[in-house]
C-alpha cells in the first residue's frame, strides 16, 4: 500500500512538476500568472486524442503535433492579450481568467462533457521490485516526464536561449542593456510555458482522461507547486511538484479520497503563513 501510493505520487508528481515549470518560467520572466495554464494542458490532451483517435495518426506523432500547436497558440495569446498588460499583473490575471472560461466553454461545445482519452502507448503491467503490479502506461508517463524535464533543464543551462532566460529572470533591465530583446523573449517564454503544460497534458491524458473543466485543478496544482518551490525558482518547483504528488496520494490512501485536493491547499496556506518565500527558498534560476 505504502509503496504503491509512493509510486503513484511520483508519477503524478513528475507531471505536476512539468506543468509547474511552465508557470514558473512565465512568472520568472514576465511576472505574469497565466490562469489559463490548465486549459492549455487540456487542449493538448484533446488535440492528441483528436489526431490519434479520429485522424489515425501515430500516437507519438499526434503528441508532438499537439504540443507544437499549443506552442503556436501560446504565441498568439501572448501577442494579442498579454502584451498590452505588461507591468500590470492584475490586468493580465483578469484577462487570463476570462480566457480560461472561454476555453472551457469551447471545450464543452466541441468535445462535450464526456472524458476523452487518447490511446495508450503501451499495454500491460510490470511487477515493480516484486511488490505490486503497475501499469506500463504510468511507468512510461513517468519516464517521459523525466525526459522532458531533463531536456528543459539542459536547454536552460546549455543553450544560448537558456542563458537569455536566466539573465532576464535575474535582472530584466540588465539583460535588456546587454542587448536582449525582452519583448521577443517574453513571447517565446510564454509559448514555451504553454508548451510545457501541453507536454504534461499529452503525457498524462492516456492515464487520466481530459474533461472540459479539468484544467482548473491542474492549474491550481501548478500554482501551488510554484509557491511551494518559491516563485521563480525552477528546481524548487520540480521538488514542489514531487512533494505535492506524494503528499496527495498518501493523504488519499490513509486519510480520505474525497479530500485529496484539500491537503494541497492546506500545504499552500501553511507555506504562505510560515515560509512565504517557499519551502526551498528563493533562489535564482
Amino acid at each position, binding site marked *: 500500500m505504502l509503496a504503491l501510493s509512493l509510486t503513484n505520487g511520483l508519477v503524478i508528481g513528475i507531471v505536476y512538476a512539468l506543468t509547474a515549470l511552465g508557470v514558473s518560467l512565465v512568472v520568472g520572466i514576465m511576472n505574469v500568472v497565466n490562469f489559463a495554464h490548465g486549459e492549455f494542458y487540456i487542449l493538448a490532451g484533446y488535440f492528441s486524442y483528436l489526431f490519434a483517435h479520429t485522424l489515425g495518426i501515430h500516437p507519438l506523432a499526434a503528441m508532438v503535433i499537439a504540443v507544437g500547436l499549443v506552442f503556436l497558440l501560446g504565441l498568439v495569446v501572448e501577442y494579442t*492579450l498579454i502584451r498590452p498588460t505588461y507591468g500590470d499583473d492584475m*490586468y493580465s*490575471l483578469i484577462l487570463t481568467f*476570462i480566457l480560461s472560461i472561454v476555453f472551457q466553454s469551447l471545450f464543452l461545445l466541441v468535445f462535450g462533457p464526456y472524458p476523452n482519452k487518447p490511446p495508450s502507448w503501451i499495454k500491460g503491467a510490470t511487477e515493480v521490485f516484486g511488490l505490486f503490479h503497475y501499469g506500463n502506461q504510468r511507468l512510461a508517463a513517468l519516464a517521459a516526464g523525466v525526459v522532458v524535464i531533463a531536456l528543459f533543464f539542459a536547454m536552460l543551462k546549455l543553450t544560448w536561449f537558456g542563458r537569455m532566460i536566466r539573465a532576464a529572470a535575474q535582472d530584466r533591465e540588465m539583460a535588456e542593456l546587454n542587448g536582449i530583446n525582452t519583448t521577443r523573449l517574453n513571447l517565446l517564454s510564454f509559448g514555451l510555458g504553454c508548451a510545457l503544460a501541453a507536454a504534461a497534458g499529452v503525457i498524462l491524458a492516456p492515464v487520466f482522461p481530459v474533461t472540459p473543466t479539468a484544467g482548473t485543478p491542474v492549474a491550481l496544482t501548478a500554482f501551488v507547486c510554484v509557491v511551494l518551490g518559491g516563485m521563480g525558482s525552477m528546481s524548487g518547483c520540480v521538488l514542489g511538484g514531487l512533494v505535492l504528488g506524494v503528499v496527495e496520494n498518501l493523504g488519499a490512501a490513509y486519510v480520505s479520497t474525497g479530500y485529496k485536493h484539500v491537503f494541497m491547499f492546506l500545504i499552500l496556506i501553511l507555506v*504562505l503563513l510560515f515560509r512565504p518565500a517557499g519551502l526551498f527558498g528563493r533562489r535564482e534560476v
Partner: protein
Amino acid sequence: MVKAIDNRWWLAAAVAGFAALPWGLGIYHQHVLIVSLFYVMMTASWNLLAGYTGQVSFGHAAFAGIGAYASGILATKVGLNPWLGVGAGTLAAAVFGFLLGVLCLKMGGIYLSLTTLGFSEILHIIINNEYEITRGTMGLQVPGLIAEYSKLAYFYIFLAGAIITLAVVHRLIHANIGLNFRAVQNDERAAAALGVDVVRVRVLAFTVSSALAGMAGALYGHYLLLITPQIPSLDQQFLVLSMTVIGGLGSFAGPVIGAFGLEILSEYIRAYGEYHVLAFGLVALIVARFAPRGLVGVWKQFMDRRRPAA
C-alpha cells in the same frame, strides 16, 4: 450646462422610479430584476476589493456560498428564523473574510488571487463531500424569507439589500478611508510612507466586501429556496468578474451597469443554450482587452472628446 442640482434628489428620483418598475411587469421579468439586484450586490462588493484596493479575489462567490449555506443550514437543522439566518450568514462570511484577509496580508496581488482561488476550491470540495449536511449537488432546500411567496416582496427585499450594499461601498470610498483605499491600490509603498495603515485598509476592505457577499448569497438562497454548489462556483465568480469588468472596474456606477446589462443580455441569449457562457466570455475578453475601464470608461472618454478643453 446642467444646473448643479443636488445629487441626492436625482438619487431619490432614480430609486423611486426603480421601485415602481416591477408593478407593470410579469413574474418572469420581476425574476430577472431580482437576479440582477443580486448581481448588483455581488459586483459592487467585489469592485470595492478589486477596483478600489487592487486585490483581485477569486473567492467572492465562495463568500456568497458561505452566507447562503450558513443561513440555510441554520434554518433547516436548527430551525432558525431565515432573517436571523441572513444576519448569521453575513457574520460568518465577515469572519471568514477577516481571517482570509489577515492570511493574505503579506502577499502581493498574485499570491492573494491564488489563495482565494484555493479557498474557493476547498469550500467546493467540502460542500460536495459533506453530503449529510449540505446535500451536495442535490441542493439544500431552505424556507423562504416571507410566509407567502411573492416576487414583488422579494424584489423590495433585494432592492433594499442592493441599496445597503451600494451605500456601504459609497461611504467607504468617499470617506477619508476611501482615499486611503485608492492610495493603497496605486502605490502601496508610497501610501505606507505617507502614513496610511495599509494593513488595516486591506483587511477592512476584505472583511466588508466578504460580509456584503455573504448577505447577498444568504438572501439569494432564501429566494431560490434551493442552495446548490452553483452559488459558490467558479462560473459564478466569472459572471461577477465579467459584469464588473464590462461595466467598469474601479468606478461606482460600472458594476451596477454591468450587472443589469449582462443579466438582461443573458436572459435574451439564453435561447442559444450552451453558447451563452462563451458569448459572455468573448465579450468580456474584448472589453477587458480594448477598454480596460469598461463601459463607464468608454463613456467618459466620449464625453471628454465632445467637450473641448477649456
